[in-house]
């Protein structure tokens, strides 16, 4: 320890250079993609003309350069100011968000851009680090516990929802959804996993149910959406029984007698997997094989959905009975979960069905299930074509045709990953995914090594935001996720998002660099 104290601790030795390296690699990859996406066919391909100001590639270089300066400045600041000014920064940004719609000029229906001189900035991009800071500050308070404290949970949710609401007012729903990712951080900090799970499953029911509502099972009259959701509910219930009502779990958490618990557990699992799941398979099978076909091309003669719902209802009653009779109330909660699941699904379904057609379209667009009426699925089809045409090694730098000839919409912003896929091929795009994975895992590692909750909470916020952006953006481009317009960190064109992500990341690096002094 003495030797360490003698050695002057500078920022250069305590900074996490690995993350900086990943950051620089991603920036380099990102700029190449911007070049590919913005390159106009027939222009010179040398580096000087690409870097010249006035072109988008040149502008992006300016943003990258200024981001690096911004990062360096943050690293030179005293790490305590983030802690000290967290509330102030948060309040200032909320005010800015509140003012934005009044100062903004309309860009494609979005009211989120403020014009300063010749630059446009999007305050929503900077609210992320402010929200992360305020959560870190609040959750690192003395004696703070998230588990078992509804009050603390509610305050955290309020801190998250406030900027979200303001961003929704700016008609940037995609950016607002990003804040939901902070639930991941809350989960790490002690929010019950069941809350996260319930939230994710509710979203899944609605999205899956609506997405497949008009697909018919075996060309009959049964909606695939209903069938899938009923199956999901049964599978989730089985998963919950396994996770929360296993005898060993109950014993560890003193929630029930072990001998009775083992019997009840077996009974519940048999009811769920055997009776409910088996019953559904039986209904579909009987309808398919033993009933005469009404129409020649239909392999399911009548709508089996009501039967499936009845089976689900029976399962709920059965679990209620098991819970109440054995006094293991976790079964009651699981039954309530199943009931809630059905309620969420059917109320969303009914709501959407009773909307006027244009409103229905708007909801579907919001959920990313439908695009604007004159091009259903156009963006995703074009982006899949662009990526698919890249092959193993890609078409080479500036040689892509799809992105260059503007077949992919929003190609330099939300759909930038197409350019990577087309020009760098499988090797390049897989490499980018691996770089992002390394960054995410590194963020977890760095967050976990923080001596204080402040750094750890902030670190997990950074992780959650990056994870959500990568998950949604690349998933959308690959056609696996609904189309939600959010940028890919370090790749999408634009100064605001690049500055926003740099701020978010480098503040964490600065906090991390200060961990040893704080330890002393």
């Amino acid at each position: 320890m003495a030797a360490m104290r003698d050695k002057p601790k500078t920022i250069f030795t305590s900074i996490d250079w690995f993350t900086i390296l990943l950051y620089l690699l991603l920036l380099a990859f990102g700029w190449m993609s911007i070049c590919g996406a913005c390159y106009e066919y027939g222009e010179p391909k040398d580096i000087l003309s690409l870097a010249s100001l006035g072109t988008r590639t040149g502008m992006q270089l300016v943003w990258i350069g200024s981001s690096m300066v911004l990062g360096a400045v943050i690293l030179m600041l005293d790490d305590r100011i983030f802690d000290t000014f967290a509330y102030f920064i948060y309040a200032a940004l909320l005010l800015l968000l509140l003012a934005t719609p009044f100062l903004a000029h309309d860009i494609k229906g979005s009211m989120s851009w403020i014009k300063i001189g010749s630059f446009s900035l999007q305050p929503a991009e900077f609210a992320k680090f402010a929200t992360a800071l305020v959560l870190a500050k609040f959750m690192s308070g003395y004696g703070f516990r998230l588990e078992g404290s509804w009050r603390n949970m509610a305050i955290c949710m309020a801190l998250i929802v406030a900027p979200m609401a303001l961003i929704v007012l700016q008609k940037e729903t995609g950016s607002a959804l990003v804040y939901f990712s902070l639930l991941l951080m809350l989960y790490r900090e002690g929010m019950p996993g069941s809350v996260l799970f319930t939230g994710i499953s509710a979203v899944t029911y609605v999205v899956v149910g609506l997405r497949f509502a008009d697909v018919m099972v075996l060309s009959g009259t049964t909606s695939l959406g209903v069938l899938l959701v009923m199956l999901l509910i049964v599978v989730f219930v089985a998963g919950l029984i396994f996770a929360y009502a296993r005898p060993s779990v109950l014993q560890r958490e003193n929630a029930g007698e072990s001998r009775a618990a083992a019997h009840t557990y077996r009974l519940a699992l048999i009811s769920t997997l055997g009776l409910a799941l088996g019953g559904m398979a039986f209904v579909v099978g009987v309808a398919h094989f033993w009933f005469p076909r009404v129409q020649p091309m239909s392999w399911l003669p009548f709508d089996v959905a009501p039967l499936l719902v009845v089976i689900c209802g029976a399962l709920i009653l059965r679990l209620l009975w098991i819970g109440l009779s054995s006094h293991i109330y976790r079964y009651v909660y699981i039954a309530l979960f199943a009931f809630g699941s059905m309620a969420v699904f059917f109320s969303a379904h009914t709501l959407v069905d009773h909307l006027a057609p244009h409103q229905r379209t708007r909801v579907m667009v919001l959920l990313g299930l439908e695009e604007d009426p004159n091009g259903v699925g156009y963006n995703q089809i074009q982006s899949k074509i662009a990526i698919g045409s890249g092959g193993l090694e890609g078409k080479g730098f500036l040689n892509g045709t799809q992105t260059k000839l503007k077949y992919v919409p929003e190609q330099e912003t939300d759909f930038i990953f197409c350019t990577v896929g087309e020009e760098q091929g499988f090797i390049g795009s897989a490499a980018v995914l691996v770089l992002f994975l390394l960054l995410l895992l590194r963020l977890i590692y760095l967050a976990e090594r923080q001596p204080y909750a402040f750094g750890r909470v902030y670190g997990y916020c950074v992780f959650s935001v990056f994870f959500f952006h990568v998950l949604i953006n690349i998933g959308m481009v690959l056609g696996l996720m609904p189309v939600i317009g959010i940028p890919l960190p370090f790749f999408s064109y634009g100064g605001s998002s690049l500055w926003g992500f740099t701020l978010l990341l480098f503040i964490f690096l600065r906090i991390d660099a200060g961990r040893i002094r704080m330890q002393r």
Partner: protein
Amino acid sequence: MADVHLSNRKFVLGTSAVLVVIIYIVRLFTLQLMSDDYARRADSNALMRRIQFPARGAITDRRGKLLVYNQPAYDIMVVMREQVGVDTLDLCQSLGIDTTWYHRRMAEIKDRYRNPGYSPHTPQLFMSQLSVEEFSNFQEKLFRFPGFYIQKRSIRQYTGPYAAHIIGDVGEVNPADIEADDYYRSGDYIGKQGVERSYERQLRGIKGSEIVLRDVHGRIKGRYQDGRFDQRPIPGKNLVLSIDLELQKLGERLMRGKLGSIVAIEPATGEILCMVSAPSYDPRTMVGRQRGKKHRELSLDPMKPLLNRAIMGQYPPGSTFKTSQALTFLQEGIITPQTSFSCSHGFHFKGLTVGCHGHPSPLPLVPAIGTSCNGYFCWGLYYMLGNRTQFHSTQEAMTCWKDHMVAMGFGYKLGVDLPGEKRGLIPNAAYYDKAYKGSWTGLTVISISIGQGEVTLTPLQIANLGATIANRGWFITPHIVREIQGEDLDTLYTQRRYTRVSPVHYETVVEGMQRAVEGGTCRSAKNPWYVTCGKTGTAQNRGHDHSVFMGFAPRDNPQIAIAVYVENGGWGANYGVPLGALMMEQYINGHLSPESEAKAETFANKTIDYGSYAR
């Protein structure tokens, strides 16, 4: 304790990140490496083959005179996105259109149902095929009309108002053409009639293509790989027709004001020297923007000017057919040149009468042809169909007769290289069995021997009969194209087709046809320069008789065989003989003598009143 429990959650988060990335890499793998479907779709997205049109082949007559060529024309294109602030009134005045037409056309362009390829970024056709004069007027003011462009293309042009039926015309392809041949794309041009249609494959050439890169709005961004895969168009082949333009001109002049046809054939080659169908029309009116309107107008004309009567008109051949009968009877041994039949103003037998004009009787074959005796040929057919030593039945005799006719090129299409040829009608035994329920004899069908009754021929078939007699027993399928640049003619047009009659019998018939000119029905065809052989025909029909002539000249080494058919022209000698004589003189001498010229002018000015012609 609780903290340790919570810190395990880092594994849940880390694992989910790893899982997401693995799923995404698998997805990338399937998209990029499992199938090349996406790569192909990308190419069809971005690469556009731009067609380059070849020049259509030119057409000349047998002496090298140009008949059809290509002329530059101009299309006016408009890019909707760029045409803002154009003075509509000024534009309309420069183009000679009215504003309602302008607005209707603009609406049509934007209508995606009528114009499926519409994009506001790419040039759309506004007006097509402006002539040089119309265009030069507009070009001076072009700078005032942003968004309007000129696109050069070529249209067919004809040197004179002649040979419309032979040359035909070109028009835009219809869906059936596109269906039949995938060479064509919507908006392409294709030969619609005449040689333009029958030699479409040679005339059209081969389209070239350049591959260009196109952006999502359809704007051209450059040439793919600097044109490495581009193909230059190969121009169409030029055609030399066998037509003699001067002869064709004379024929069309002589047929003014009449309905009918003149066909002349070079016997040694089967080349068609002229093919006149009257009434005709000026092919120069069938180009450019007026084509559709003009075509509609012509198709409604009761005189049917679009009908090529030379190959589509099926007429009773009248007495010209007697030559074919004489040949058949001689070959089958029914008669010899010395056989005489009596004729007292016609054929009278068992109450049946076929009338004839006054001439000495009985007559042997040569003078019978010369005076065109009906009785002689009726007796001939009667004896042939009733001959039970040679034939077991009337049917068998009829079949033998029919085979002779078919071998002479009747009853079936000859195979001329023009579209729409008709086959005429040569009845056979089955035809009469059906018509008369089996009970018929030579007497029942006697009128076919004098080219009446059921028999019909096209003027081309009549001319071909002349060519066959001129050749003494063979012909080459008549054809209108003499040479195709860089390609041999179809062997159909180089091979001789022999009839079933031996040459010695032909000499007898030639003798008879010479007699007709020198002292028979064709006396006005006699001339001091060469020996002409001919045969008149006066075909009875519902109205006034048709005037027909079939002949060839000179008698030895014939240069031209001809058929003249003037509807309702009366006696063969009224129109057929003089017109045929003038045509032969023009071809053989290369010009008309002053007396003949005067005669030609007289005939050119004669018109026949067809009243309310409807058929």
